[in-house]
């Protein structure tokens, strides 16, 4: 049950109306960053204040919420945001991707394909894809208005000139519906093809005071060149716990001698595969004894 000292989902109604209007504008103009009056939240910037505000504006009492941090349900950020909404909105929470209606994520898209009945809320640190190329907001606004994205292609070209390939591995820029170039938040570029999905995707940047969105089934193209096409790369290993060869992997150092293992970054997906009997290189050999 939610704490009666708080309004439903923490924020006051006037704030939620303002955020909701920004979300609707974002959906109407896919990929465009809508300014909004971001509030102080009871957590520091960088811990998902934008995502939390967007989630708070979207939640209904009947929702089941899942929160992931880099794919994991059990890290500090995910646990504390989940608790925050348990306390202030009284919504049910889950770690199962399939059971969730609202999923707030920090830097991953779940491996399990999302459905039309789900909403994916991203936490975004720097919403402006052109910010590191042009620090002035007045100029980047103009560049978006004029659809002037040559600078971004120069950056990717310089990657190729210096490294032989496009070295950008996360926050890989995309163009939404052939118009706005957008930062998909720091998801690995492995996740970029999944940005075309059935669920509504909402992006909230609290410190930078921007909300943007991708409606379902929108065309989302990762920027590339004909001779250097976009490639959704991952570590070239199977998961050491569930054996999956098609998932995004974390590299974990396991001893002082340089030993390492690769495990699925999506803990729910990995756990479900293990429960189904899939085994990896370092899985405990429990069944063998029986």
């Amino acid at each position, binding site marked *: 049950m939610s704490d009666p000292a708080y*309004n*439903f*989902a923490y924020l006051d*109604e*006037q704030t*939620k*109306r*303002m955020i*909701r*209007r*920004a*979300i*609707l*504008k*974002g*959906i*109407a*103009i*896919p990929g*465009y960053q*809508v*300014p909004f009056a971001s509030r102080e939240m009871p957590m520091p910037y960088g811990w998902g204040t934008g995502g939390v505000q967007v989630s708070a*504006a*979207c*939640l*209904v*009492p009947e929702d089941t919420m899942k929160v992931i941090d880099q794919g994991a349900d059990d890290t500090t950020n995910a646990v504390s945001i989940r608790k925050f909404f348990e306390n202030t909105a009284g919504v049910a929470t889950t770690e199962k991707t399939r059971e969730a209606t609202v999923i707030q994520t920090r830097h991953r898209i779940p491996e399990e394909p999302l459905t*039309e009945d789900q909403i994916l809320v991203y936490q975004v640190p720097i919403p402006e894809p052109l910010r590191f190329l042009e620090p002035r907001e007045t100029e980047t*606004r*103009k560049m*978006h*208005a*004029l659809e002037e994205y040559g600078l971004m292609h120069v950056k990717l070209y310089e990657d190729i000139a210096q490294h032989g390939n496009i070295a950008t591995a996360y926050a890989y820029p995309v163009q939404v*519906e052939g*118009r*706005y170039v957008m930062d998909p938040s720091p998801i690995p570029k492995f996740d970029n093809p999944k940005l075309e999905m*059935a669920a*509504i995707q909402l992006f909230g940047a609290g410190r930078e005071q921007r909300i943007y*969105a*991708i*409606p*379902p*089934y*929108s*065309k989302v193209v990762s920027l590339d060149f004909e001779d250097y096409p976009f490639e959704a790369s991952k570590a070239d290993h199977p998961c050491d716990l569930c054996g999956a060869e098609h998932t995004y992997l974390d590299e974990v150092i396991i001893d002082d001698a340089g030993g390492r293992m690769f495990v699925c970054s999506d803990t729910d997906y990995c756990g479900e595969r293990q429960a189904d009997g899939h085994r990896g290189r370092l899985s405990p050999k429990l069944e063998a004894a029986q």
Partner: protein
Amino acid sequence: MPQDTLTGGFTEAPQQSARAFRSLMNALARPGTIEEITGGTGPAPLSAAAATTLLTLCDGEMPIHLAGGHDTDAIRQWIAFHIGAPICARNQAMFAVGTWQALTPITDFPIGTPEYPDRSTTLIVEMDTLSNTGATLTGPGILTTAQLSLPETAAFQQNRLLFPMGVDCYFTAGTRIAALPRSTKVEAH
């Protein structure tokens, strides 16, 4: 002050506005989808869907334009009591309510600027009925195509040419609501 000025607002604002917003968001994110939206009722001819939409999205910061037969004392007082939004002319409106006939020509409404295309009007078009027949819709939020009984097509095709600027439309009938964001391409059936 007539009694219905004081009634018709949300009785449980946080929960009711949250559910209403989800209907509004689903409708806009999937153009052509018809959603149920309830919680508020205003004086006639304001439909329950339009009244709930205003209660969910508007406040003192959002100037509303009342078009044609919707510009009545009863509706003005209802908005003043429940929402507190200023009533304004077409060219200052952030929201506008009326029948399609009263709202046209829609070119009078703010469409935003190239830098800030979000500074545009949202139209709430009161309809007699809504159905998934008529004009064919394609674009963001639509897997293949969708159909919606739009009052006309030419005005929406013109509006689409302004993208990313332009107005967004909600269509309301009773407690049902559908939407047509500026991003949707419309073809006559």
